[in-house]
């Protein structure tokens, strides 16, 4: 099993930390992992993306141009990465702020209204965990128990009290994600 994922959105949406939690969960499940961020000015509010690879084998390139899955959180990223999803692959996106929706017919596309949901819960910071839950519903590449361990590893100890909230948000994500176009 090898899953090559791009997560892309605005800086501040928790793109990098979502990727980190996914990668750490993979480590806890004894997988090979790689987490490669875009870096530089993106950190300060522009677009931000991270390539996460989780595999049973030694990972070759940490930098990729095509992906099994794309998790897309803004319009620029959708424009940039829709065509980078492999045929038969997965695209998960939050329709919030999207004016041009994906058009590919040869991939599975799912929608998750995570921005709205996070606002509804009243904790905008949980946005990325809701998205992660939605992704894991269709790509269960790491098991729940290892997600918990991944959270423990990637969050500083002072934030460990927030782990149950994060887990709940992941669960919420699995509940609200819905197919947009499937093949």
């Amino acid at each position, binding site marked *: 099993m090898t899953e090559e994922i791009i997560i892309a959105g605005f800086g501040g949406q928790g793109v990098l930390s979502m990727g980190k939690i996914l*990668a750490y969960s993979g480590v806890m499940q004894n997988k090979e992992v790689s987490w490669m*961020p875009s*870096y530089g000015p993106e950190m300060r509010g522009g677009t931000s993306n991270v390539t996460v690879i989780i595999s049973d084998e030694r990972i*070759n*390139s940490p930098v990729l141009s095509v992906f099994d899955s794309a998790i897309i959180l803004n319009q620029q990223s959708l424009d940039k990465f829709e065509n980078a999803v492999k045929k038969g692959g997965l695209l998960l996106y939050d329709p919030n702020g999207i004016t041009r929706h994906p058009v590919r017919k040869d991939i599975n596309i799912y929608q998750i209204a995570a921005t709205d949901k996070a606002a509804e819960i009243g904790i905008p910071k949980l946005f990325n965990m809701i998205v992660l839950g939605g992704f894991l519903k269709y790509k269960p590449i790491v098991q729940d128990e290892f997600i918990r361990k991944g959270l423990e590893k990637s969050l500083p100890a002072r934030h460990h009290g927030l782990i149950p909230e994060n887990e709940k948000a992941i669960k919420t994500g699995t509940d609200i994600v819905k197919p947009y176009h499937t093949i």
Partner: protein
Amino acid sequence: MKELRLMKGNEAVAESAIRYGVDGYFGYPITPQSEILEHLMAENPYEKTGMVVLQAESEVASINMVYGGAACGKRVMTTSSSPGISLMQEGLSYIAGAELPCLVVNVVRGGPGLGTIQPSQADYFQTTKGGGHGDYRLITLAPASVQEMYDFVGLGFELAFKYRNPAMILSDGVIGQVMEKVVIDDYKPRWTDEYIKKTFPWATTGKNPNQSHVIVTSLQLDPVKQEQVNLRIQAKYRECEKNDARCELLNCDDAEYVFVAYGSSARICQKAIELGREKGIKIGLVRPITLWPFPTKVLRDMTSKVKGMLSVEMSAGQMVEDVLLATQHKVKVEHFGRFGGMIPTPQEVLEVLETKIIGG
């Protein structure tokens, strides 16, 4: 006890330095390697091992602090990225001339000039052919994973002390920024002052009674003597070339074509090999681990076994010159590179192999 961590390549360098027992780090912030100094400062190594960490006023000061520390027989290092490494060239020449060991890490970014902060491998010439003035070399290690970023700190110091010459870890923005699994060691104690004094008679560890003082210098006004210094240094380099050229061969047993690539380019080539082999093309990878000394013999031996080689670098074509020197036109060699901070994709690397080497 070994411990498994998920770390950035840059963080791995810092963590390794503390745990290996490095005595001093002197550095100046520059993207994409500032995590090294940040991680060191956050870890408070002086409390853990007595390691000194100092943010210097410039790269020029950093490398000269390294010079001062190295001359005391201490294990000292600095890290930077391309423009900062350019500033260090004078100091590196002095350190090589004074025959001192030290470790320098270059997390290469695109140039020339201020360039870009994105990954590049365009500092190959600067690193392997001298860089500063005079006849000297840097023992150059090219990590292709975060684990190697960690491991090469120790290996770099080992080789630097073996040959009393600066060693360079030539990395790039990909390997510096990517997070991967790393197995890390326990803290090793630093060398004691007594051990250093006993082991390194060339170091300024305080004058011994009944012995003349130690002078560390790269100055030798008499050209006859300066030539002797050079001959001694060159003899050392021949030994290093004989004993310490390293490379990794992947999928080479049945390969009809090989990529020659180091660092992150090697990783990209591995993906291209996977894609190529799915199409039935037998491709292998020769990955130089030491760029100087270059694994010349391995490549020369390879000329009778393969039909062509593609040297893949994030540069306009630098290592390819060493590949050509090694292979002496006995086999077709071409270069493919993206530069200025652009990273080639596995697909385009494979395509170039197909058109320039197989079809060409």
